[in-house]
Every structure is written in structure tokens, then in C-alpha cells.
């Protein structure tokens, strides 16, 4: 095109980033790769697969498929390296992480181009977002390695971490996994996604260049089958997975009862809420970053637009206008906004879901601009006239497809935003500060971005609520996935059921021990009792569980809305009433004293287990909220019946949860005796519920129940079963022997989840 023609048309023209250095790198390896295990490259194996460039469907390289021998070898190498790696000390680990960060910066463009070739995302994103965040992550965690001893005294690494990452942010997800693991003294076996293994292999070369000790990082390649081998490997201590909720469930089941620590970062259908007083042009620009970033193949993509009805028509008009200037094309072109979809299978999924949405009545808008057919491309798409009941409003599309709905009031916005099984992220747009904070607190999601979207940083934890998974990546909260707290030095003696003493008067009237549900003593639905030590106790069944969960769910929101100060008052009052009824409880004086002390501990922390402000490189404030998980259930051990019950109640309700406790099967009497004290202590109805009966049966119903947000199982015989059944709604689990009551922070960590709220500054 001549200069005079361009002068008239003012077209952009092509602006390609050269692929040559990345191609040369592939060629230098003969376009085939082995795996990086124990500091050495394995021979490219015969069992191998192709990775393709999604923008032109051309093969890039042949990559080896890891089978059992390779996984075994990698885990073995990681195991051997781990003690040495931890014991070399924080400073030396910091030096290695620092070296990784520097190397990535020095080869930033090669990484960016290679990532774009393998993944299909625009070079603008790999160059300006992915790779800078990668080096930032290693720098930040080099710092954590350096100060681990001081900042996390007594913490120890988990051991060998198996890490399985997705194809949408290949190197970034690698950094989110490897940096904190190495910082805390763990070693890793990491498997990149089969569609995008290349930058992980280039990363392995960096590990060699900086002289990282053998076995500290092992990179294995392969498909889901290789992933399964890692998950099921008996010598792996922790699994960290980012990917689909479906696979997350499988991993939850596979690791249940094995004692493997688990963190899952899964899918989402994140709401993007625009109020009528928002800066609309900016909110629209935010949408571009929310749903047309990385072709919408982002777990936290703002894929559900909720816009206030009063501005909706105009807002969608403006949005369509903005969509018309998005450029879809060669991802190596510097002026392209939307690159290629990862694979044919994903493209077909997007196409079929959009077709289904339209069939269900959605109105579709796609701008008329060109959309290449040389690779797997899909145009930016808006589906309006969609209701919460539409398929496309519920399922994660994982493509450049936005669904739009409207709301009338802030309360309705929250209701719609939370009307999803997921809870990964959300955006809120308003110029009203009070409204922004209010909505940020009410949306159930691990991250809330106010007047911004898709902000990430190593200093801030990222992860989900609900079926978006558990665990955080980044920030202090993320470290706790890779380090375990010191074992408490004070051990508590266990208490058996107190045998009757000759001084106890014989019972004169028949005593009926019922259940405690919704603030009332309730007869069991089934009408059966169990006998323990000569007394009758109600036998709860699945309907009693159902009733208790409903009562708890109803009570929880209001309870969480109370101040920590008020919750503390209730716990103190409960302790006081326990003290006053000391003589009438069938427990030893020591156990009771310890129980009262534990209630005081949790009451004390009710207004002290607060969040922090993160040091993100962001003009604004990133603050964390330690929010209650919601409805917590606790399956309690036979011994220390009262102490275990009071610990669980104290930990759960101090933070604003409601609890359903399954007390000691062997000694339910103290629990039954607690009903009246709870009634007398201003504990709101439904906040504490107690069900006597068969723990195995009740634990199964609770673990299965989608309305239960967390389950603590302090009976070793039931832990595996509870973990496995919890895969249904991916509720958080804590299966262990009864934790020491005085280990208050550990309890509270399990009764809260971290929300990160990003609020920019500037008028």
C-alpha cells in the first residue's frame, strides 16, 4: 500500500513482532524435547505429542509424554533435593529466586514470543502483562525466602509439591506455583498443560543456567494422564492445581484421605457490576480488559455483565461501539487485541455454547471486523437479553463472550452476582465510595476489583470462594499453602467421659436429650434414640441435617454482619454461664476450665483476626478481609467431648460462621447439657446447631450437602470419606486429629477465607 493511499485511509497496517529468535530456539532443539528431571534433560521419548501454534495450526515442536517411570524419577529427584534445598537457608534460596527473576527479564522477549506462538494470545499481553508479572512473582518471593525465618518463625516446608497448570497463562501460572514453593523450601514436579509446554521448557533451561540444585525444579510434560500420575503418586506431599472445576473435583477425590495438602484454583463466572453512577466509558474499557483479555480464556474473566437498568440501553450501545474497534488477528501483530483460541476443541465449545445461548433467546452482537480463518479465531461477542436461567449465564464459556443482564437495586445486584456456584473474582463500578465498599463486602468472591479489573500482583492473594476452589496464590496468605505452621509446643491432655461418682444423685426423672437446631431443642425426625452410658440421646438423620443446615444458613448472614465486638460478648457470656453451671456438667473440672479458657481465647480474637493492606505496585489500596466461610460443620472426636465442642463452636462463630456440630459419639452428654446454656447465652438461633447420632452417617450427609461451606473432621476414621464426598461442591475440608485448642490462629485460618479488595485512588 502506498503512502498516499495510507494517508487517505489512515489504516494501521501490519506491525509484526518477529518470531525468528523463538523459532531458532525450537530449531536448536530439533523441534523435539525431553523432560527436565533431576537437573538433566531426558531423551525425547517415542511416546510424544505435538504442540501447535493456534494462530496458524502449524506444529511447533514434539514434546514427550511423561509416564510412570518419568514421574517416579521426578518425584524421587524432588524428594532427594528437598532437605538440602530447605536447609541451605532463606538467603541462598532468595539468591536463586532472584537469579530466576533476572534471567526472565533478560530473556523477556524470547519468553513473550514463544508464549504467543504456543498459546495464541497477543504479543501485547505476553510482552506487557504475562512476562512482567512472572519476573515480579519471582522477585517478590525471593524476598519471602529471604525473610521466611523472621516473618514465619518455625514454619516448615510441605515437602515435594506436584503442580499442574493450565494453558491460558502458561509461564505466569508456572511462576505462581514455583516461586512460593521454592521460597518456602519445597521442591517441585511441575507439569505444564499439554497445549502449552514450551515456555516451561525454556524456563527449565534458565534453571540450568543459574545453577539451581538438581531436583529442586522438575518439569514433566504430558496430558491429563501424566497429571493423574502426579496426583496419585504416594510420595508427593502437596498438589497445587489450576484448571477446570471438573478436574479439580477429580483431584479432590483422588487425594482424599491421603494426607496430601491440596490447593485448587478453578473456574469462574465472575460478575462485572456497573452501577448508574459509574464512569461508564471507563467501565466499558474495563470490560475490554475483563472479557476480551486473553480471548476471554481467563478463569476470573468478567464474563457476566450486570448493569443497572436505568443506564442499560445506553451502556450496551456504547459497548457495541467499543467492540467495533477491537482487532482480531495474528497474535504476533502488535496492534491486535484478540488473538487465537487455544485449540479446535475449545473453539467448538465456544461456538456451541453461543449457539445454545441464541437458541435459548439471547440476542447476539458481533462486530463486523475481520476474523481470520487461518487459525482458531473467534470474534468478540455480546449476548444480551439473557437471564440468570440461561445456560450461557451459568456455565463458564472460557471464550471472548460476554453475557449481559440488568439489575434494579444494589441488593439485587448482589443477589445476581452471587447467584452462581463459583466465587473467583468480581468487579464493581461506581463513584460512590460507600456503595463500593458495601458491595465488595457482600459479593462472595476471592477478589473484588473496584473500578478496575484483572489486576494481579505477587503481593496479593488470588483464589476462589465456593466451587472456584480453595487456597490462595500470592501474598502472605499464599505462602501458607507451601509452609506448615510449627507444631504447638503445649500439648493438651485428652479427657475421657467422666464416670459417675458416688456423690452424684441418682436420676429421679427421665431425661430426654433432643437435638439442638435453630435455637430450639428439637425431637429427631426419625423418632429413634441411641443409648450411651445408660442415657438416651436423639438419633439425628439426614432430614435433621437438612433442617440444621437451613437454620444455620439463615442465621449466618446476620451473624456475620454483627461486629467482632458483639460476637465476643456472646462468647464471653457463654463462658460465664458455663462457669456458673460448673457443678451440673458431666465433665472434669479441668476440661471445663480449659473449655472456658478456649472460649475466652476465641472471644478475644473475634475483633483481632483482621486483614492487612498489601504492598502491591498499584496506585490505590489492596486490602484483605478475613471473611467467614459461611456454614461450617464439625465432626468431633470421642474424647475431650466438651473441649472439642467448645473449640469448634468458638473458632467458627467468633469469625461469623454458623456451625453444625456432631459431638462425641462415645460421650454426647456434655453436648446435650450445653443446649440450655446456649439458649441462656444470647447465641442467636441457628448460629450453633448440635446433632447427636452416628458420626459416620451424619458426616456423609454433611459432606454431600451443597449448602455446607466447610467441614472439619476431627475423627481420623472419617477423614478420607469426608474429603472425598466434599468434592461435590468443593467445600473446604480440615481433616486431622483434634487441633490443640490454644493454637488459635490455625483454627481461625480454617474458619475464614481471604478476600482481596482492590481500590484505586485518584480523582
Amino acid at each position: 500500500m502506498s503512502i498516499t493511499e495510507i494517508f487517505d485511509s489512515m489504516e494501521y497496517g501490519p506491525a509484526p513482532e518477529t518470531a525468528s529468535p523463538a523459532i531458532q530456539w525450537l530449531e536448536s532443539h530439533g523441534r523435539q524435547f525431553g523432560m527436565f528431571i533431576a537437573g538433566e534433560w531426558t531423551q525425547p521419548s517415542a511416546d510424544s505429542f505435538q504442540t501447535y501454534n493456534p494462530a496458524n495450526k502449524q506444529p511447533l515442536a514434539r514434546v514427550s509424554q511423561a509416564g510412570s517411570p518419568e514421574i517416579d524419577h521426578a518425584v524421587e529427584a524432588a524428594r532427594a533435593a528437598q532437605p538440602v534445598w530447605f536447609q541451605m537457608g532463606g538467603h541462598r534460596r532468595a539468591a536463586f529466586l532472584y537469579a530466576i527473576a533476572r534471567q526472565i527479564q533478560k530473556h523477556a522477549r524470547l519468553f513473550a514470543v514463544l508464549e504467543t506462538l504456543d498459546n495464541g494470545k497477543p504479543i501485547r499481553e505476553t510482552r506487557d502483562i504475562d512476562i512482567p508479572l512472572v519476573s515480579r512473582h519471582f522477585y517478590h518471593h525471593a524476598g519471602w525466602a529471604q525473610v521466611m525465618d523472621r516473618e514465619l518463625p518455625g514454619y516448615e516446608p510441605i515437602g515435594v509439591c506436584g503442580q499442574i497448570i493450565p494453558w491460558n497463562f502458561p509461564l505466569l501460572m508456572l511462576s505462581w506455583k514455583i516461586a512460593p514453593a521454592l521460597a518456602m523450601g519445597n521442591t517441585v514436579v511441575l507439569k505444564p498443560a499439554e497445549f502449552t509446554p514450551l515456555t516451561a521448557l525454556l524456563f527449565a533451561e534458565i534453571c540450568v543456567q543459574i545453577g539451581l540444585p538438581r531436583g529442586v525444579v522438575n518439569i514433566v510434560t504430558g496430558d491429563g494422564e501424566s497429571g493423574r500420575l502426579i496426583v496419585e503418586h504416594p510420595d508427593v506431599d502437596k498438589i497445587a492445581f489450576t484448571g477446570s472445576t471438573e478436574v479439580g473435583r477429580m483431584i479432590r477425590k483422588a487425594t482424599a484421605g491421603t494426607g496430601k495438602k491440596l490447593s485448587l484454583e478453578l473456574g469462574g463466572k465472575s460478575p462485572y457490576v456497573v452501577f448508574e453512577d459509574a464512569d461508564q466509558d471507563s467501565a466499558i474499557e474495563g470490560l475490554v480488559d475483563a472479557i476480551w483479555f486473553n480471548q476471554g480464556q481467563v478463569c476470573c474473566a468478567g464474563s457476566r455483565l450486570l448493569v443497572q437498568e436505568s443506564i442499560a440501553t445506553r451502556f450496551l450501545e456504547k459497548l457495541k461501539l467499543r467492540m467495533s474497534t477491537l482487532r482480531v488477528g495474528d497474535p504476533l501483530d502488535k496492534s491486535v487485541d484478540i488473538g487465537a483460541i487455544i485449540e479446535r476443541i475449545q473453539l467448538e465449545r465456544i461456538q456451541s455454547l453461543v449457539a445454545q445461548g441464541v437458541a435459548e433467546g439471547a440476542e447476539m452482537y458481533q462486530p463486523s471486523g475481520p476474523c481470520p480463518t487461518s487459525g482458531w479465531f473467534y470474534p468478540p461477542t455480546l449476548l444480551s437479553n439473557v437471564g440468570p436461567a440461561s445456560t450461557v449465564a451459568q456455565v463458564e464459556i472460557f471464550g471472548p463472550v460476554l453475557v449481559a443482564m440488568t439489575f434494579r437495586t444494589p441488593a439485587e445486584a448482589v443477589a445476581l452476582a452471587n447467584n452462581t456456584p463459583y466465587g473467583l473474582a468480581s468487579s464493581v463500578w461506581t463513584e460512590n465510595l460507600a456503595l463500593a465498599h458495601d458491595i465488595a463486602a457482600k459479593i462472595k468472591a476471592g477478589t473484588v476489583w473496584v473500578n478496575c479489573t484483572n489486576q494481579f500482583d505477587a503481593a496479593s492473594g488470588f483464589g476462589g470462594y465456593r466451587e472456584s476452589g480453595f487456597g490462595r496464590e500470592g501474598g502472605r496468605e499464599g505462602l501458607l499453602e507451601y509452609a506448615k505452621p510449627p507444631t504447638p509446643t503445649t500439648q493438651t491432655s485428652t479427657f475421657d467421659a467422666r464416670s459417675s461418682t458416688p456423690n452424684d444423685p441418682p436420676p429421679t426423672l427421665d431425661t430426654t436429650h433432643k437435638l439442638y437446631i435453630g435455637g430450639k431443642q428439637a425431637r429427631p425426625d426419625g423418632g429413634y434414640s441411641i443409648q450411651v452410658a445408660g442415657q438416651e440421646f436423639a438419633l439425628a438423620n439426614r432430614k435433621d441435617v437438612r433442617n440444621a443446615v437451613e437454620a444455620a444458613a439463615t442465621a449466618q448472614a446476620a451473624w456475620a454482619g454483627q461486629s467482632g465486638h458483639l460476637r465476643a460478648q456472646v462468647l464471653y457470656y457463654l463462658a460465664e454461664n458455663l462457669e456458673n453451671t460448673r457443678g451440673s456438667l458431666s465433665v472434669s473440672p479441668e476440661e471445663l476450665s480449659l473449655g472456658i479458657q478456649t472460649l475466652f481465647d476465641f472471644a478475644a480474637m473475634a475483633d483481632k483476626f483482621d486483614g492487612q493492606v498489601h504492598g502491591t505496585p498499584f496506585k490505590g489500596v489492596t486490602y484483605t478481609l478475613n471473611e467467614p466461610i459461611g456454614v461450617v460443620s464439625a465432626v468431633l472426636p470421642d474424647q475431650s467431648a466438651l473441649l472439642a465442642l467448645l473449640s469448634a463452636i468458638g473458632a467458627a462463630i467468633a469469625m461469623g460462621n454458623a456451625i453444625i456440630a456432631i459431638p462425641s459419639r462415645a460421650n454426647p452428654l456434655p453436648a446435650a447439657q450445653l443446649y440450655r446454656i446456649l439458649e441462656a447465652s444470647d447465641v442467636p438461633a441457628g448460629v450453633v446447631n448440635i446433632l447427636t447420632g452416628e458420626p459416620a452417617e451424619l458426616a456423609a450427609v454433611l459432606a454431600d450437602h451443597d449448602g455446607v461451606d466447610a467441614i472439619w473432621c476431627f475423627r481420623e476414621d472419617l477423614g478420607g470419606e469426608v474429603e472425598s464426598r466434599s468434592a461435590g461442591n468443593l467445600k473446604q475440608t480440615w481433616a486431622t486429629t483434634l487441633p490443640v485448642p490454644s493454637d488459635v490462629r490455625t483454627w481461625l485460618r480454617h474458619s475464614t477465607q481471604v478476600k482481596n479488595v482492590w481500590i484505586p485512588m485518584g480523582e
Partner: protein
Amino acid sequence: MSAPDIAHLLRPTERNPGIPLDLDWVNSIRVNRSAVERRAATLPGRRTVKKQWQAAWLLRAITCMDLTTLGGDDTPGTVQRLCAKAIQPVRRDLIEAIGAQSLEVKVGAVCVYHEMVSTAVRCLQGTGIPVAAVAAGFPHGLSPFKQRVEEIKASVESGAREIDIVITRAHVLNNEWRALYDEVAAFREACGEAHLKTILATGELGTLRNVQRASVIAMMAGADFIKTSTGKESVNATIPVGLVMVRAIREYFDRTGYRVGYKPAGGIRTAKQSLDWLILMKEELGDPWVRNDLFRIGASTLLADIERQLEHYATGRYSAFNRHPMG
């Protein structure tokens, strides 16, 4: 890419007559600074032009340039020199080397103080390049109102076809929207057939919300262009400010159907900056706004850098300032 939409080229831009002051609109304006800054920061990374596209765009930037001299020491001699440069902004051999003779590239206007208007008009006679005069108590805008109106009329009488006025910042800072509207409307009336560019002096308005409110009122009052700066404030044309103003222009067009022009001025010195501004216009407002009936860049030294870049395109070698004739 699809064929460019050139329908707008076939009809002249209809002049904005203004509309009645709409305070509901003014009061509904919300601007979120951090979000604006994010868009501004990422925009240059989202679009770029290379090779002949870059050269063509730089030539386009020249045609959108208000070549400006606003020195207290301006003389007829320096103005004459500037006008000569306006007519032949790029060395003829260079234009031939890149094959752009047919474009007859010249600047969008020459911008001077009132005293220099008649000199500039004389020097530019027959070239089609309009003379723009800064007026109405430029740059402070605080001389007696009557005199400011008279100054506009005097410049128009001397042959200025464009008038760059500056608003009373106090009206914005104190939310005196009616007073601001009346002021700009009076200046517009004084302009007659001459086009009115309204300088908001954005660096002195305190907030981006104020910038957008002032932009909207200036357009309601009949501004043909809205312009960032006098060049004398400590902060001049920045991309975030530009974004807020062009979004106001887009909204005004959507609501009224009138296209108002945009002129960033002050601190635009590099060829790269001029491309960033063109990209901003194209992305936010579309192709009609990358031509000089709706887009101007106020600049005095920018041209020299553009010439160097054009020479680099033509020869593949980096150029030096002394190879290009001064203005």
C-alpha cells in the same frame, strides 16, 4: 481490514451551533481517574504503525498541526519564517523520496498573537493555510470581558479564520456553569464565521471530572474545537486529559449529531507523541477525527522531530536536526 469508511469525507463537517445549557448532563458526569490513566497508559501499547504506515501517519500529523509561535519576542521576521515553514514543512527532496508529492503536505494552520495576524495572513495568502489567533486575554483570560470580546473581533477583522480563546478557570473551579456557558457563547458570537477553539487550560482545572464538565459546556456553548492548554500551564496536553475530552466529544456527537474538533497543545514534541494522539483519536472517535477539520495538534518544535523520522524512513539512517530547515 475492511474498507475504510469514507462517507464522512463526502460531506463537509457541519459546524456545531451549540445547544442550550443542559445542567442535568453536566451534573451526571463521572470520571474515574485511575481507570482513565490505565486506558491512557495501555493505549500506546495496543496500537502502533510501522514503515510506510508510520510515514503516512506522520505526514497526516503535519497536516493536523497548528504551527505555533507565541513568544513575547515574536517579530514579523520570525512569523514570516514560520509561515514559510508552514507552506513547505518537509524538504522537497524528502517528500519526493517517499513518494508523497501528490499530497501537497502543509500544516493545518499557523497560530500567532493578534499583533502578528496581519503578517501571517499576508505570508500565507493563496496557500489555503488559515491563520489562527490566540485571543480573549490569552493566556490568563482575565482581562476585562468587553476587551476580550473586542480582541476576538479585531483578530477576525485582521484576517484570522480561527480563534483560540481561553476560558475563565474560576468558573469551573467554582462550578459557575451558566457563567462559563455565557462566556464561551459570547466568544463564539464574536467569532462570526471564524472557528472557535476553546482552551480549557486543563492543567488548572484540578480534576478530570472538571475537565469533562468544562468540555461539555464549551461544546454546548458552540465551540468548534475544544483544546487542552495554552502551553503556559505547568501541565499541558496529557493522554489522560485527552481521553476525557475526546470521550466528551463522542458523547456530544451521540447526543446532538454535531462533530466537535479536538486540539491538544503544549508539550507535544516528538513524532511518537503525535502518533499516540492520532491513535487516541482513531480509537476513541473514529476516522473522521484524524483529519484537520476535526483534529489539530498545537506545536512549535514537533515538526522538526517528524522531519527526522521521515528522513529515517526514506534513507534508513538516523537524521539530525540541522539537516532540516528551521521555521
